[in-house]
């Protein structure tokens, strides 16, 4: 495979896997959320994310040119072939923890897709223009909950702080660059993740200030997801997500 195509394939896989795994995680809330409105919200977020993943992974498959489409990539790879960041595969925990994860991811994702709208790759730019509008809603929703819980009762505040504390350790990985991505940035295709970090930090700080919470980057930063080194929780998630297509590989609705 030629090198630029392989780098683009890997990049699309990273973006697609992030959306897919977080979308799948959020579906676990369906029927379990604190209220019907929240239940609908989380299902809608999951739907958007899986829709974005479908577009990104379908395109990845075309770039790879080995006959794999989004379904093939989603259902017939093992954990070590997934390149999502570790943040999205973490278990939901309680509602505050889910919102902490969503807040960090959607704020990052909104900045990412906003930049990708002007990517030199027209297909990626098209997908980003579509996705950014959806992700903007997600970021607003998550920020609203961070404020509401952070500025709420003693218990909601404690849980919100615990959720944010837990997820801080996974934030750096979302902004890490490597040689392949740097080469794509040079060609105007990818986003320089490091360059959007400041805007991310500002958005986080502004929301936390509104919630009456302090910004406290805590925990030893963890990474490895982009290289396929995941926690066992991802395997459990994949087992549930993939069991049907693996048991009946050619089944259709």
């Amino acid at each position: 495979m030629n090198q630029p195509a392989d780098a683009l394939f890997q990049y699309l896989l990273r973006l697609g896997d992030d959306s897919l795994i977080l979308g799948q995680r959020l579906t676990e809330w369906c029927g379990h959320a604190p209220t019907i409105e929240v239940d609908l919200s989380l299902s809608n977020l999951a739907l958007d994310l899986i829709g974005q993943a479908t577009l990104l992974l379908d395109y990845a498959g075309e770039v790879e040119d080995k006959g794999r489409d989004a379904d093939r990539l989603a259902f017939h790879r093992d954990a070590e072939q997934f390149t999502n960041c570790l943040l999205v595969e973490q278990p939901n925990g309680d509602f505050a923890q889910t919102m902490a994860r969503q807040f960090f991811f959607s704020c990052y994702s909104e900045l990412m897709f906003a930049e990708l709208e002007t990517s030199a790759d027209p297909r990626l730019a098209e997908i980003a223009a579509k996705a950014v509008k959806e992700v903007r809603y997600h970021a607003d929703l998550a920020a609203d909950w961070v404020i509401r819980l952070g500025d709420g009762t003693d218990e909601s505040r404690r849980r919100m702080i615990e959720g944010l504390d837990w997820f801080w350790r996974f934030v750096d990985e979302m902004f890490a660059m490597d040689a392949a991505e740097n080469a794509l940035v040079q060609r105007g295709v990818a986003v320089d993740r490091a360059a959007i970090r400041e805007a991310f930090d500002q958005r986080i700080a502004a929301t936390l200030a509104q919630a009456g919470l302090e910004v406290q980057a805590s925990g030893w930063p963890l990474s490895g997801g982009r290289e396929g080194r995941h926690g066992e929780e991802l395997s459990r998630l994949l087992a549930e997500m993939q069991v049907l297509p693996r048991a009946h590989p050619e089944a259709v609705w």
Partner: protein
Amino acid sequence: MAVLGLVPDPEIPAVSVVDLGIVRGLFTGGDGALKVRLTPTYTGCPATQLIERSVREALDAAGFRDVAIETVLAPAWSTDMISEAGREKLRAYGIAPPPRGAASRSLRGGDAVECPRCGSADTREVSRFGSTPCKALWQCNACHEPFDRFKCH
């Protein structure tokens, strides 16, 4: 186009896929085949495949045998693509339509939303996400009617 104007949106049957701006164009190719260009409202909208099938069935029933359906993402669908007639049909159906030019404004803009039942502008958002990806839940403070609002997008 007249045929497609009768194809209802699967989730809001009061409006057609043409009213909603999902049909982006009709072309006759050099080979005489009819090309239909569709755009999804939301990337994960579960109705997208159903819409494609309904469009195909409607055109087939109207005698168009050679039809090619193409999905386009750009320009990204926005609520500004909903026609004036579509807006009126939404209102009559009990869904507050999005204001014009909404897509270019902030999603958090404080637009007045009118209750589709009594017309009062004294309304509040209950939940940003409603029964389908394209709608938010609102309630009227004047008549207490809960209603759907088409999200600015």
